[in-house]
């Protein structure tokens, strides 16, 4: 018996990226643009979608909900008569903390791709893993709420750099919080200078129009609108 060294030099995430490309091809063929929406748990992704999708004027939207367990978020979207598919990630050891390309692939047959223009993939709430696993999206957006710390961008630079848009949510709470919005913006600027950011309150509707416009541009096939 002898021992041999084998040179490999291969990105360990290649397998995921290959499947992500296959997903992207399927979406492209159906003329569907895809947004991968990410955030920490509780940043308000689903509430933001509820506030946004009521009135998308001519853009037909579908939603893919990723959660470790349950269908609470998908139920909220379905209540608005928007086509939604729930993916649960609890098959793994303790539950996967993100969607990967293969999970999204498994959901494609259930998605009405011919009847939608825009697919929003609401990823599992987490600021680490979703940034590393592409799922076949055209663009990535993240929601960061003002009830989280101002230093989030410095703690999770990979996530803040992976996004084409940062939506800052819950701004209606600013007056009740000791929150330094300028410091957050400064930290975002340090990690991802010039990334577009939109201030919104999913609760009051402030800023939601701007976010809706961004989505409309993505649906129209515009590359990462500024």
């Amino acid at each position: 018996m002898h021992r041999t060294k084998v040179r490999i030099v291969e990105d360990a995430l290649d397998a995921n990226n290959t499947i992500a490309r296959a997903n992207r091809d399927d979406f492209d063929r159906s003329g569907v643009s895809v947004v991968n929406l990410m955030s920490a748990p509780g940043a308000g992704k689903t509430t933001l979608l509820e506030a946004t999708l009521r009135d998308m004027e001519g853009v037909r939207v579908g939603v893919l909900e990723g959660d470790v367990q349950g269908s609470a978020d998908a139920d909220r979207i379905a209540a608005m008569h928007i086509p939604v598919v729930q993916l649960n990630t609890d098959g793994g050891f303790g539950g996967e903390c993100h969607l990967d390309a293969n999970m999204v692939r498994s959901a494609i047959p259930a998605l009405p791709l011919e009847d939608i223009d825009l697919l929003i993939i609401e990823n599992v709430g987490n600021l680490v893993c979703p940034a590393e696993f592409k799922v076949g999206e055209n663009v990535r957006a993240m929601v960061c709420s003002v009830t989280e710390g101002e230093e989030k961008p410095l703690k999770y630079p990979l996530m803040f750099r992976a996004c084409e848009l940062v939506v800052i949510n819950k701004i209606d709470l600013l007056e009740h919080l000791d929150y330094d919005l300028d410091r957050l913006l400064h930290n975002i600027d340090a990690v991802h200078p010039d990334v577009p950011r939109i201030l919104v309150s999913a609760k009051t509707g402030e800023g939601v129009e701007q976010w809706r416009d961004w989505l409309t541009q993505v649906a129209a096939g515009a590359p990462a609108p500024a």
Partner: protein
Amino acid sequence: MHEMSLAGAIVDTVLKHADDRKVTLITLRVGGMRQVVLDSLEFYFDFTARDTCCEGAKLELIQVSTRLKCRACSEEWEPEIPFFRCPKCESADVEIIAGEEFEVDSIEVDEKEAACTAPK
């Protein structure tokens, strides 16, 4: 906390190249941007490698420092904190030239050891 998924990705990648030979050492190149904790990666690797050719293999990490380059003035630097604006000309047009790696660099395998079965 992402180390479990990363451990799975490592095992999948190595099995493609192991040809059913027993793997004793896996050398990884991991960039500073990846925020990988070795202890945690080893812990999950031991789980995901079970009953595969990788079971019992040691993990070795080559850390790659994050290195940035300004597209405007060609300045290159290694940031100590995540700061992606050129320290020289303040341009935001900055490229990561190293630090995003998550690669299996090489493996060591035992030839002639009783073959083990790679799961599909």
